[in-house]
């Protein structure tokens, strides 16, 4: 409508004006440009994380989360150049860029069933995601190596990392708990095997504030499962938590006989003992070696058995028997059994402050003044022995040496001496002339037998005599029956006796006369006048 030309009339042609409606596409363009700009502005930082495999990862879907907040998305999964791993190309939100430090850790969170229970349960439905634990390094990075398992500790976690060295086999796995008196205070972070030293090293992490429990005198032991030990202390059953029974764990503590020691702030190595009991046995002390030359048996004496001085533990048996060859090397005539013991002065010093040479000198002094060692039964149930030291031997002028070892004189007491005494008793019993004794006893018994036989005859004869005596007695009884009070014989006898009495009474004056004048029988003289009773009135 712009080019209508009419030459006859000048026509004012209205300039085609722009309609206001053009604002609409303009606004659309502005909005579009704005969106594109914002998109570009918000475009995240691209990073690469190398994983072993892409299990659970999905391009454009898998999120990167920090404290469960989405901070990025997996864009692409590629193989690495060597083809042995995968590279996850991830876009991280721009504002989270500061978390991409060179020691930041990434790992895939997926459902895991472990000793500590089921983790990552939520990812069953939502799918795996990549978690980030920011580091504390100064430098940013764009390429990371992802962890296969969630880390026990992150660079920012508070606590202490320690290394445990174990000579035994692998008994712990990553994630096993570290407990202190039942509290879970950390976990095993990694397990490595050092080929050179042929030792298993466990890296463990103790969370703050429990890291304060680790001191120079802390001892770690493996609490895997159930330990059953028959030691000189009796039978011990040690069971940690059920969890560690199933999967193992590490426990630590400061032994009762040690001071706490200084707190450890720097990572360092510790020995991992196989059990709590083995700490006591295997704990490394500074020691002085001595030898005891034992006359009799060393049966029941084990390496590690206690050496006590009047009940105080001062050392351990190093070798219950030095070895035939070594013994011969030192002294080929020696028939006694050399028992090597370690005396550990550290056990006597409560504060780990002691002087080894001083102790040695002091000990030699004691040996001179009569220190003696003897083997004693430590536990009658298990029959284990211990070495007991006590004074009471005869004073020695000089300390003896057996090879390089100082000799502690051996004394016989305790069970060993009981055994030897019993032995002597038995041999004495054996030497008794029992046979002859038995023989003579035998003859004595047989002669006694004949005596008894003849006695038997006598008894039979006696028996017949007794029978006749019985008859006699019966007869006597019959006879005596006639003599009873109401029997005629008795009555007669009584009468006769009464008559006799009367007669005797009648004869009394006669007899009196005869007594006074015995001749009156022959010379019948006048009988003296009867003595008249004289009274005052008649005279």
């Amino acid at each position, binding site marked *: 409508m712009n080019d*209508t030309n009419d030459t006859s009339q000048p*026509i004012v042609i209205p300039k*085609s004006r722009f309609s206001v*409606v053009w604002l*609409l*596409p303009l606004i659309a363009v502005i909005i*579009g440009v704005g969106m594109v700009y914002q998109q570009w502005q918000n475009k995240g930082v691209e990073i690469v994380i190398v994983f072993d495999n892409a299990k659970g990862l999905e391009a454009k*879907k898998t999120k990167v989360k920090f404290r469960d907040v989405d901070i990025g998305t997996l864009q692409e999964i590629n193989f690495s150049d060597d083809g042995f791993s995968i590279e996850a190309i991830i876009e991280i939100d721009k504002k989270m860029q500061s978390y991409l430090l060179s020691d930041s850790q990434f790992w895939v969170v997926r459902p895991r069933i472990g000793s500590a229970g089921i983790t990552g349960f939520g990812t069953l*439905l939502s799918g795996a995601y990549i978690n980030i634990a920011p580091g504390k390094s100064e430098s940013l990075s764009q390429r990371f190596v992802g962890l296969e398992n969630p880390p026990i500790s992150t660079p920012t976690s508070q606590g202490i990392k320690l290394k445990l060295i174990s000579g035994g086999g692998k008994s712990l796995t990553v994630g096993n708990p570290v407990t202190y008196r039942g509290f879970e205070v950390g976990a095993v972070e990694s397990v490595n095997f050092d080929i050179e030293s042929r030792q298993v090293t466990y890296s463990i992490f103790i969370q703050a504030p429990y890291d304060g429990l680790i001191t120079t005198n802390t001892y770690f032991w493996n609490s895997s499962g159930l330990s059953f030990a028959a030691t000189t202390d009796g039978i011990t059953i040690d069971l940690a938590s059920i969890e560690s029974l199933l999967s193992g764990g590490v426990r630590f503590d400061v032994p009762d006989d040690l001071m706490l020691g200084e707190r450890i702030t720097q990572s360092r190595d510790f020995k991992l003992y196989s059990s709590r009991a083995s700490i006591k046995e295997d704990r490394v002390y500074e020691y002085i070696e001595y030898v005891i030359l034992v006359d009799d048996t060393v049966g029941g004496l084990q390496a590690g058995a206690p050496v006590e001085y009047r009940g105080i533990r001062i050392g351990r048996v190093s070798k219950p028997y030095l070895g035939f060859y070594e013994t011969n090397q030192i002294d080929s005539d020696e028939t006694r059994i050399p028992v090597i013991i370690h005396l550990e002065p550290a056990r006597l010093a409560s504060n780990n402050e002691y002087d080894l040479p001083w102790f040695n000198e002091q000990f030699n002094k004691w040996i001179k003044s009569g220190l003696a060692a003897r083997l004693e039964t430590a536990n009658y149930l298990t029959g284990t022995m211990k070495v007991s030291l006590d004074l009471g031997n005869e004073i020695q002028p000089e300390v003896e040496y057996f090879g390089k070892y100082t000799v502690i004189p051996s004394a016989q007491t305790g069970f060993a001496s009981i055994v030897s005494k019993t032995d002597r008793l038995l041999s004495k019993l054996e030497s008794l002339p029992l046979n002859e004794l038995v023989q003579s006893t035998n003859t004595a018994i047989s002669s006694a037998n004949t005596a008894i036989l003849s006695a038997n005859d006598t008894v039979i004869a006696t028996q017949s005599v007794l029978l006749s005596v019985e008859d006699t007695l019966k007869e006597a009884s019959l006879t005596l029956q006639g003599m009873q009070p109401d029997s005629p014989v008795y009555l007669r006898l009584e009468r006769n006796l009464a008559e006799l009495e009367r007669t005797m009474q009648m004869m009394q004056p006669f007899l009196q006369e005869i007594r006074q004048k015995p001749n009156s029988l022959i010379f019948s003289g006048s009988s003296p006048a009867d003595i008249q009773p004289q009274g005052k009135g008649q005279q």
Partner: protein
Amino acid sequence: MQNDKAKVASDVAAQKKANALTQHFQYPPGTAAFEGLANCRSCQLLSDVNVGNCPRCNDTLYLRSPNSIQRTLALIITAILLYIPANIYPIMTTVLFNDKTASTIVGGVVLFVKSGSYFIAAVIFAASVLIPIAKMLIILWLCYATSRQSHLSRPELSRLYRATEFIGKWSMIDIFVVAILVALVHITGIMVVEPGTAAQAFAGVVILTMIAAHQFDARLIWDKQKK
């Protein structure tokens, strides 16, 4: 927009009034415009354009809708601009057990083809890709054809125009599907359908093309076919 329209209308009306007496001679003979008769846009009353305002409803009288092509073009360009995000952004996000799946229009079509649902794929493809694009292209062509010479005859162009008006509304099928799904499938935690940015952009495309088609004054087709 109504204000803009009114303002534009009044501005144009002022100019038109100035040239009203001569203006109608531009139109080809045989048209009402050539006779100086204008159809009221509001009440369809045919009256002399020189009267200025409709004697019945007092609306301003125009021989042809002013700036019709400009408006149509502006709206179509806006629609084309909106059609870009409508295809880039996901139209719908399905959350199934925390597993988010965002699908764009074309992505949805591909998905249905892959799963063997060819009919649904065809419907979506027609409604979301073919029809809007066709409509926008036709309107652009009409704008071009009315301002320049065209080899197409008047009835052919008219048929095209009517076709755009007819098919345009079917594009809304996509938006309805999304709206219904969002309303129906909302089982929190198990399955949730969320509308995407593209849904709004696409709705904008459909609405804008409809308005553009409406804004196009079909009589312009006939004006240019005088020769």
